[in-house]
C-alpha cells in the first residue's frame, strides 16, 4: 500500500530484499512461532485521508464546551490563564518537538540550555536551590516528593493535609503503597490545615508533611508554622505550590520547605482535558543527590566553551536500574519549554502583575457574591479561588450557568461530603468585570 508516511517503492523493496538475500518480506517474520502469528487484518477503523480525518475530528472537538467559547470559572488545579501567543510558535519549532532526550549534547545544546533556563526560573520562583528538568505533573511530583522523603529519612509515614488537591492525594496514596509507606490525612479546619491535628499525628516515624500553597480551597496557608512543627520532629516539609501565585507570595524556600513541587500548567500550557501538563520538582542542595528525574548542568568543552549536559545521572534508572531513586524516564520536556517561554514573556514584572490581577479579581468576585447574599466560606487569605455556599445542588446550578455561556466552578461535594452544595470558584486574570458581574447575576437569578 502507498501512504504519505512510508517512502518505500516497489523498486526499493526489490533491491533491499536482494541485498538481504531473501525473496519476500514474510521471511523476516518466520521467527514468530506459527501459533502466535497474527493472520488477517486488525479489526480497526479503515484509514482516512488527511482532510476527511481533520473534518471528523473537528466535529468531535466541537461537541465539547471549551474555554474559548464559554467563560470558565473552573479551576481546582487546572487554570485558564493568559497564554502568550509566542509560546506555541516556539514549541512548534520541530527541532525541539521532534527531538529525543538530549543524550548527545553536541547536537542538543538548544534543548539543554532551554532546560537549564527552566531550572533557573523554577529556582527563582520557589526560592529553592535546585530544580530538576520536570516531572509528569504536579500530582506525581508530590507523590515522588513523599517517597523521596521516606527514603531519605528512612521513615515510613507521610502526613498529607486534607487541603491538598484530592486527586493529588489519591496519587500520593498509590505511590506510597508501592513502597509500603503509610499515608495519613491531616484534617482541615476553617479551610486550612488543622495545626492541632498535625501535632497529634506527627511522630518520630513521620518522613514528611505534605501541604499545598495556596491550598485546594484557594487559601494561603501558614506553611512556615507547619514547617517548624515538622522539623522539630525531624520530618521534611513538602510544599505543592502554584508557581503563578509565587509572583507575589513569599516563596516556600524562604519558609522552610525542603522540597517544593507543583505544576507549571498556569504558565503557557493549555488545559487539554488534564494533560499533558508539567510537574516541577525543586529541593535544597543537601537533598540534591536524592531527587528524581533528569538534571541539566553547565560545563565546558575541550576549548573552554560553555555548554550543557545531563548530569548526576548516577541517580537514574538507566544507570542504577533496581537501585534507582525513581523509575522516571520520559518527563514533560516540551511543556517545560512552553512554561519557560511563558515565564520569560511574563518576566519579572509580568509574573507579579498577573498574580496581583488574580487576587484583585477574586476579591472583587467575592465582594459581589457577598453583596448578592451568598456566603463565601473561610475568612483566610485567598489567591484566585473561593468557596461559595449554594442553596441548590452545584450540578443543577452549573447546568443552568452553561446555558448562559459559563462553565461553573468545581462541585466540592464530590470529594468533601461535608461541603455538598458548595462550589469552588476560580477567577483568573482572564475573567473580565463584565463576566464576573454576569456570573453573579445569573447565580442570583438561579437562586431566586
Amino acid at each position: 500500500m502507498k501512504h504519505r508516511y512510508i517512502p518505500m517503492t516497489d523498486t526499493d523493496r526489490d533491491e533491499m530484499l536482494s541485498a538481504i538475500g531473501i525473496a519476500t518480506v514474510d521471511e523476516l517474520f518466520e521467527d514468530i512461532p506459527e501459533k502466535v502469528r497474527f493472520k488477517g487484518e486488525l479489526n480497526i477503523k479503515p484509514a482516512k485521508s488527511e482532510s476527511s480525518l481533520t473534518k471528523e475530528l473537528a466535529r468531535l472537538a466541537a461537541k465539547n464546551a471549551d474555554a474559548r467559547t464559554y467563560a470558565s470559572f473552573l479551576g481546582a488545579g487546572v487554570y485558564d490563564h493568559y497564554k502568550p501567543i509566542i509560546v506555541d510558535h516556539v514549541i512548534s519549532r520541530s527541532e525541539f518537538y521532534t527531538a529525543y532526550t538530549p543524550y548527545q549534547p553536541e547536537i542538543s545544546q538548544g534543548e539543554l540550555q532551554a532546560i537549564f533556563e527552566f531550572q533557573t526560573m523554577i529556582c527563582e520562583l520557589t526560592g529553592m536551590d535546585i530544580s530538576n528538568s520536570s516531572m509528569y505533573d504536579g500530582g506525581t511530583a508530590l507523590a515522588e516528593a513523599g517517597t523521596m522523603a521516606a527514603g531519605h529519612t528512612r521513615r515510613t509515614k507521610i502526613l498529607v493535609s486534607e487541603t491538598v488537591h484530592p486527586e493529588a492525594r489519591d496519587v500520593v496514596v498509590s505511590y506510597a503503597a508501592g513502597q509500603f509507606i503509610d499515608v495519613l490525612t491531616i484534617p482541615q479546619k476553617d479551610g486550612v490545615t488543622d495545626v492541632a491535628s498535625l501535632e497529634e499525628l506527627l511522630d518520630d516515624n513521620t518522613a514528611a508533611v505534605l501541604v499545598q500553597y495556596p491550598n485546594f480551597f484557594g487559601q494561603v496557608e501558614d506553611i512556615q508554622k507547619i514547617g517548624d512543627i515538622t522539623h522539630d520532629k525531624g520530618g521534611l516539609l513538602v510544599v505543592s505550590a502554584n508557581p503563578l501565585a509565587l509572583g507575589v507570595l513569599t516563596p516556600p524556600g524562604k519558609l522552610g520547605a525542603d522540597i517544593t513541587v507543583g505544576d507549571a500548567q498556569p504558565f503557557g500550557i493549555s488545559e487539554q482535558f488534564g494533560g499533558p501538563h508539567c510537574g516541577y520538582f525543586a529541593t535544597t542542595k543537601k537533598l540534591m543527590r536524592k531527587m528524581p528525574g533528569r538534571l541539566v548542568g553547565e560545563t565546558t568543552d575541550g576549548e573552554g566553551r560553555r555548554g550543557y549536559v545531563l548530569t548526576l545521572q548516577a541517580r537514574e534508572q538507566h544507570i542504577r536500574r533496581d537501585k534507582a531513586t525513581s523509575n522516571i524516564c520520559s518527563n514533560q520536556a516540551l511543556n517545560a519549554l512552553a512554561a519557560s517561554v511563558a515565564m520569560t514573556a511574563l518576566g519579572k514584572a509580568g509574573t507579579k502583575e498577573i498574580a496581583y490581577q488574580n487576587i484583585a479579581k477574586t476579591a472583587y468576585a467575592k465582594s459581589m457574591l457577598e453583596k448578592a447574599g451568598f456566603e463565601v466560606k473561610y475568612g483566610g487569605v485567598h489567591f484566585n479561588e473561593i468557596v461559595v455556599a449554594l442553596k441548590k445542588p452545584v450540578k443543577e446550578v452549573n447546568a443552568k450557568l452553561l446555558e448562559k455561556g459559563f462553565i461553573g466552578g468545581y462541585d466540592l461535594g464530590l470529594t468533601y461530603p461535608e461541603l455538598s452544595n458548595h462550589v469552588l470558584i476560580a477567577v483568573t486574570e482572564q475573567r473580565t468585570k463584565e463576566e464576573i458581574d454576569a456570573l453573579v447575576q445569573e447565580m442570583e437569578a438561579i437562586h431566586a
Partner: protein
Amino acid sequence: MHKDNQPLIFEITKAGRIGYSLPELDVPEIDLSSHLSGGLLREESPELPEVSELDIMRHYTALSNRNHGVDTGFYPLGSCTMKYNPKINEAVARFPGFANIHPLQDESTVQGAMEMMYDLQEHLEEITGMDEVTLQPAAGAHGEWTALMMIRAFHEANGESHRTKVLVPDSAHGTNPASATVAGFDTVTVKSNEFGLVDIEDLQSKVGPDTAALMLTNPNTLGLFEEDILQMAEIVHGVGGKLYYDGANLNAVMAKARPGDMGFDAVHLNLHKTFTGPHGGGGPGSGPVGVTKELAPFLPKPILVKEDDRYTFKYDVPQSIGRVKPFYGNFGIYLRAYTYIRSMGPDGLKAVTENAVLNANYMMRRLEPYFDLPYKQHCKHEFVLSGRRQKKLGVRTLDMAKRLLDFGFHPPTIYFPLNVEEAIMIEPTETESKETLDSFIDTMIQIAKEAEENPEIVQEAPHTTVINRLDETKAARQPVLRYIKEEELVNA
C-alpha cells in the same frame, strides 16, 4: 550553525523591557501588603527575564538551531522509534475543543473527548490483543509501574503476598528493574543465551512460588524475537506468575503478532514511540496499559465506560489500585496517537511494521561486513552491532557515534543493551527512505575505514558541531544546575 555561545536569556535581560500583554485591571485595585499581611507578601521579585517579544523569538530560534530533531535529519536511535511526527497530529491537538477543555467539566460537556478516548481504548485493545486498556499512565515507565502494581494487587487479593520477585532479562530497559523496585518488588535477573534470547534453563531455575511476574520486551532490545515465548509463558504461568510485556518495541510486530496472543497478562505501550506522539525533547509521553480480564478489576480509576450512547467515568471500583495520575492521562498525546492510528488504518499499521523490519534488516546486512554482528539471525525493527573490531584499533563506539555528528546524523543508541560489548543499537523506522539509509550506511563504512587508516579523526570527533565533547566529570563533580548572576557569584 555558528559556534559562539548563545547567551542565556538572563544575560540578554535589560531592566524595563517586557514581553507580555495583560489587560488593564477592570476591577477595583487592592492593597497587596494588607491582603498578604503577616509575611505572606514576597519581598524580592523573582529574577525572571526582562526582554521584548522579538528578543524571546530570536533567543529560542537560536536555541532551536542548536538542536537536532527528526525533522532535521536521520535519527536511528535504537529502542526509541524516532519516526516522523505527522503534522495533522499537531493541528488536531490544537483544536479549541480538545486543547481548551477542563478535566473537571461536567461529563455532558466533554462527550466528544470521552468518545475519542473510548474509541482509542478499543483500537489499542485490538492492536495488543488485550481485554481492557487504561489511558492514565503518563509515560512508559509510569505504565510499567501501574501494571506491576496491578499484578501485586492481584496476588494480594489471592492471598499470595509472598510473591515478591520480578524477573527481568539482562537485556531489559533500565526502567524495568527500577519500576519493579518502586512497585515494592525485588528484581531477579535472567540471563540471555548465546543467541541473544532468554536462557530458558536459567528462567526455569529462577521461577518459583515467590515469582510475581516476568517482564519481557519482545522483540527484545537486541531486536530479536523471543521465539520460545509460548514456553516461557507456560513456565511463568505454571508457577502462578504473570507475564508482562514492555511495549517499547511494538513497532516490530504490529499486526504481525499480538502480546495478548503470546500469553501476556499485561502490556504497556509507548504512544510517543510507535504511535508518533512526538518525543518533545524527552517528553511528554503517554503509556497506556492493557490487561487481561483477570487483571481488569485492578485497573486504576476512574474507568471510562459507555452506557447506551453516553460516556461516563466510573469511580466505584473496589479492587482498583487507585489513581496513578490526576485526571485521565496525557490526553493531548494520546489524541495525537489516535489521529495517527486513524490515518494509518489496519493495512497501514501492517505496512509500518513490515517496512520498519525490512529497513532494519537491509541496514544490518549491508553493515555486517564492516562491524561485528554478535547475533546473526534476521532482526526485527532494530539490530545491535558491536564496536569490538574498531576498539582494537583504539577507536571506541563513543568515538564513532561522535564522528557521525560530523555528517549530520544523530548517532544510534550506544553501550546498550548491556550484554553486548561496545554496543551500537540501530533502529531506522519505516518513515526513512532507502536513500537516507544508504547515505547513513556509506558514512558508517567510511568511519570504519577511518578507524583503520586515520583513527585520530574519529577519536577527536566531532569537528563540525557548535561545541566539542563536554566535560561530564566536571559537570557531576561541581554541579552548576542554575544560572547565578556574576556579581552574586563574586559576593558568594
